[in-house]
């Protein structure tokens, strides 16, 4: 699957965008798509929180979701770290 991760907002206000290829097996893909459907609950009092937009292209289908700082699921945090921090 092709992925695109956009991180915006935050103290720096500098948008960051990452794209690449994510090889996933059937069960992993299913789990990812399930996590993308997690609700994004905002925290009204949050200041300088980042916003996370993720999209995945699987053949002719695109799966996308957006999350606020406090609602990004742990699994997606770990995935982002794996893709953009560890390279």
């Amino acid at each position: 699957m092709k992925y695109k991760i956009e991180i915006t907002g935050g103290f720096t206000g500098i948008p960051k965008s990452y794209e690449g290829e994510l090889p996933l097996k059937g069960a992993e893909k299913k789990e990812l798509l399930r996590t993308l459907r997690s609700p994004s609950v905002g925290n009204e009092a949050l200041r300088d929180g980042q916003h996370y937009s993720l999209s995945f292209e699987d053949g002719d289908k695109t799966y996308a979701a957006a999350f606020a700082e406090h609602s990004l699921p742990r699994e997606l945090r770990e995935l982002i770290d794996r893709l953009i921090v560890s390279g």
Partner: protein
Amino acid sequence: MCTAKCHIVPPHILEELAKRGSLSCKRTLNDTGRIRERRQNALNYLLSRAQEAGEGKRFVYDCKTQYEQRVALVRQEGEDPVADEAANKAYDTSGFVRDYFRNTFGLNSIDDNGLDIISNIHYGVAYNNAYWDGDEMTYGDGDGREFTNFAGAIDVVAHELAHGVTQFLANLEYQSQPGALNEHFSDVFGTVVKQKYLGQDVSEADWLIGDSVVTEAFPGVAIRSMKAPGTANDFDTQPDHMDNYYNGTADNQGVHINSGIPNKAFYLSCMEIGIDDCALIWFETLRALWRTANFNDMLETLVNTAQSLADESRVAENAVEAVTASFAQVGLTRTVV
């Protein structure tokens, strides 16, 4: 005194009354659900007794690179320095900011009621951010490539802590112009506190925000510049005039972008009447503003505040002229005279 009647008054009427100087209606308008809940709890618990003030104690937690707050308490008020320098820095800088607000404006911690000051450090993995969440502050270590420890920068700490002060004084909503003003006040007190911390005056200060959290590899010298918005780095799109106002939807309708306009006006005002007079005018203006205040409301309130303070000989005689001229230079003039 605003009675319970305020709660059934529609927000647009509360806003008009707040603009006309009703502090109690402003307070009602600004109340978040959480504050209302706290007040209700306090009322239920204490009835006629006033809510006890806290002592604004500092607590520093190590998140141990997890995306969790308060993982391990590493230092609290009165304790000796610890081995982790980031913890000591967060402890020292948050104390400096707290003391600045207390000694300068008589503010008892973030909420003027002795709220404890909680700092979370080492948050997440290579996390390039710092934020205020309504109760406490959280700092990442940065990725080491472009950004470094956010908890170690006095202006970043003051910026985040000032978001807390704004929440309790004006609760400016976090979008469009009120949001840009929210960001502006954090940059104002970020830069004021930084200059005090470094013992600088306005002529020797760099007026940069976040210069110590960027690495040499970062394409720029800082995150923002109050003296020259739009020039701090290759991604800096802050305008320094209303002609270049950002009308897009990104960043909550440009809260970190359009703050460049009042930021430049603050810098210009400081160069005319000094940073201490400006800090007082801006702080008292923050006390008077309300949740939905826009740039015009800000200017009107600044001018009225400067006039009152000048009448009491607490700021320079020419404060009103200095503020008015500074805002005119960024394209903002008074609509009501």
